């Protein structure tokens, strides 16, 4: 630390060059921050401790095939099951059929299975009492400027009522907030309506259930319970497939896109370029300081000391730019997520993204500094001072 000012001074010996290089590094790590947020939002969806405790049971045939309502009582009897609830896909859309809203028809106990979602007691009670009541996610409400007390028209892209009209209307009675935006940010986009109102209004459902959600007593028993639930309907015309919520979400995300590969290839290209770019800067910086380094050695700096100082300089360069870039990403992410109108649900950069970023900075800094540092170490005082 004693030589910090010396390192700092040599880093900013040529201000233009260092600043230009810094901007490139900032851009690279800004991109890293943004893409890592996308990757994390894919990977962490549903990966909460609560998600491991919940099982999703759907028809084995396909996820759009409904299940009989009677199955619920049977599932509740399976040993190890704490509670059972269910939901139906409503297929809601607001104003335009392509403006889709994630909307589920659910029974009153649905929220009991999701302790990570916050709804005030009064609003919860209002939902239970109002037949046409609806609970909406915080961001969804913001997106369409809905507030509690509004009566909103929602089109179902699937289900008509008895008269054949697909225009439904609901009274918003409460707002749902996800306690942990990272793992359950999905809830902020959700629209919940009463299953009973849904089932009685549309002639198409007739007491069927889209999927069951089961909470187990013991996470370690989840696999056994899942098998027991599937065994209930084996060889019937409604065979089921039960997975933990974690596994089910991970499988959907994987089918949506191989985001790891895309992010990985982009970052590979970016960091390779960065390596070359900052490497060039460091080479130039050391080359033009040849005589200065010779003087340092003459007045008693050891070979190793000189090498360490050059390495420190390149590390400092990368860390400065990288941390600035990640900080910029941290401030930009909420803005980007806001501007996308709920399309992108990006988490704030977590500790692991920062840690990965800093490891990358250190790694690139060392790689970039290695060659100039070695040549500085091997520098022969006499030759260097003679300009040979």
């Amino acid at each position: 630390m004693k030589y910090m000012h010396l390192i700092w001074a040599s880093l900013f010996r040529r201000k233009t060059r260092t600043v230009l290089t810094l901007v490139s590094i900032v851009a690279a790590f800004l991109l890293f921050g943004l893409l890592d947020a996308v990757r994390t939002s894919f990977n962490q969806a549903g990966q909460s401790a609560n998600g491991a405790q919940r099982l999703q049971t759907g028809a084995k045939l396909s996820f759009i095939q409904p299940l009989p309502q009677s199955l619920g009582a049977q599932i509740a009897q399976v040993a190890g099951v704490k509670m059972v609830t269910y939901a139906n896909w409503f297929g809601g859309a607001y104003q335009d059929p392509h403006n889709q809203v994630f909307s589920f028809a659910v029974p009153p106990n649905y929220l009991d299975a999701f302790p990570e979602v916050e709804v005030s007691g009064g609003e919860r009670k209002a939902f239970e009492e109002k037949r046409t009541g609806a609970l909406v996610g915080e961001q969804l409400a913001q997106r369409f400027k809905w507030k509690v007390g509004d009566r909103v028209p929602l089109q179902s892209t699937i289900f008509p009522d008895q008269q054949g009209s697909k225009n439904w209307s609901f009274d918003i009675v409460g707002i749902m907030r996800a306690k942990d935006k990272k793992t359950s940010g999905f809830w902020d986009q959700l629209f919940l309506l009463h299953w009973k109102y849904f089932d009685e209004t549309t002639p198409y459902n007739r007491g069927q259930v889209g999927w069951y959600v089961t909470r187990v007593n013991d996470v370690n028993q989840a696999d056994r319970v899942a098998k027991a639930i599937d065994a209930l309907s084996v060889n019937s015309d409604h065979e089921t497939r039960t997975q933990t919520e974690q596994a089910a979400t991970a499988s959907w995300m994987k089918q949506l896109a191989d985001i790891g590969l895309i992010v990985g290839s982009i970052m590979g290209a970016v960091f390779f370029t960065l390596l070359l770019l900052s490497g060039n800067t460091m080479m130039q910086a050391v080359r033009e300081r040849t005589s200065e380094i010779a003087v340092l050695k003459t007045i008693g700096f050891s070979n190793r000391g000189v090498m360490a100082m050059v390495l420190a300089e390149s590390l400092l360069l990368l860390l400065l730019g990288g941390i600035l870039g990640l900080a910029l990403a941290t401030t930009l992410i909420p803005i980007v997520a806001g501007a996308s109108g709920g399309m992108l649900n990006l988490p704030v950069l977590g500790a692991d993204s920062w840690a990965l970023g800093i490891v990358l900075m250190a790694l690139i800094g060392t790689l970039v500094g290695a060659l100039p540092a070695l040549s500085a170490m091997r520098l022969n005082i006499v030759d260097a001072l003679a300009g040979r």
Partner: protein
Amino acid sequence: MGILLNVVLLLVLAASLAVWVILPWPGAVVLVALLAAWLVLTRRGRQAGSVANVGISTLPQRLGASAVIVVGIAGVVGVLVALLAMAEGYNQTLRRTGSADTVIVMRGASASEVMSVLDQNSVTLIAQTPGIVRDAKGEPIASSEIVVAANLPLKNGGADEEGSVQLRGVGSQVWALRPQVKIISGRRFQPGLRELIVGRGAARQFAGLVPGQEIRLGNQVWTVVGTFASDDAMESELWGDANAVADTYQRGNSRASVNARLSDPSAFGAFKTTLESNPQLKVDVATTLDYFDKQSEGMTKVIRVMGITVGAIMAIGAMFGALNTMFAAVAARAREIATLRAIGFTGLPVVVAVLLETMLLALLGGAIGCLVAWLLFNGRGASTLAAGTVGQLSFALQVTPELLWTGLKWALAIGFMGGLFPAVRAARLPVTAALREL
């Protein structure tokens, strides 16, 4: 004075970039021709040419620094072109699925086929609507279809991992309706039997989709009897007889949509009016071209925006890399440039020479980026859960000439921005000070 000049420069930069972005390629050819004419015909042009020549001939001495520009820009262009190729491939695959002379009729206000339900009455009425082509026997070329999802084991997945694939039950006229569908192995399914033909794309992604194999849908066993190719979104589906599929999925006589061939695209207007004015029906009518175009809209936009955002951030990094290199190059040649100025060269040839050098490097980088993107990604398969379907859609990335042109445009724009400021600095260097420097 200096600040004022920089502001003017920035404005010039912004204006030229705006023009550049909307410039089609003939415009670029004209620009290049004008530049070439100027270089050859005028005195200053020839001066600029010879100065640029000196700079370019000394490039090998500055290999490392020049490589920063080339590789930096190649990276930007490669990533940009690859991401845009993904959007393009997705969009084209869906667009190809539709045509202007076939129509899709669904229940009103259904966002996609999966969400639509038509009862048997409506299905019969729709198929008899005038405007639909009839075959030699007088039957309308219309296929009433049912679209559902099936869970099947993934090829590259874990032991218990299943993916979703779209299963389409089709009517007997489907072969006349979609002549692009060709059986490439095995045979067609037989009506009434639990037989399936599988699309080439689906067969690539899911395990066990080989002719002769049996697969389980729920508790029923179906036999795969053939593989088909169609070069569009249908390739990601499984097809079976509509009645058999409806039976397995307990859909009775209802169907999701009626697809039909019209005598020609101009018949669409009348066809649509007839159906929409029929009080017995409540349906939406669209040409399949419109339908699939609309389905692809959202996702295509998302990928495009992502590509341009990533490209823009990378471009900023590459631009500053180029600035750095060119400032260093100009500084290294300060004496040389000052000498030229002292013997009577004006500023303009010097500016043009430095710009030419940077843009040449940028062009090289852009070409490498395009080539790499084309070699690595053109035709490469990808898949996603497409909007409006319930299965994985596999598509191939398409590196089209337009995308390559976009990539080159970006490369030249980055080169221009990276070269302009160093060029102006070179031209404004006080002659005496530069000559006195070491």
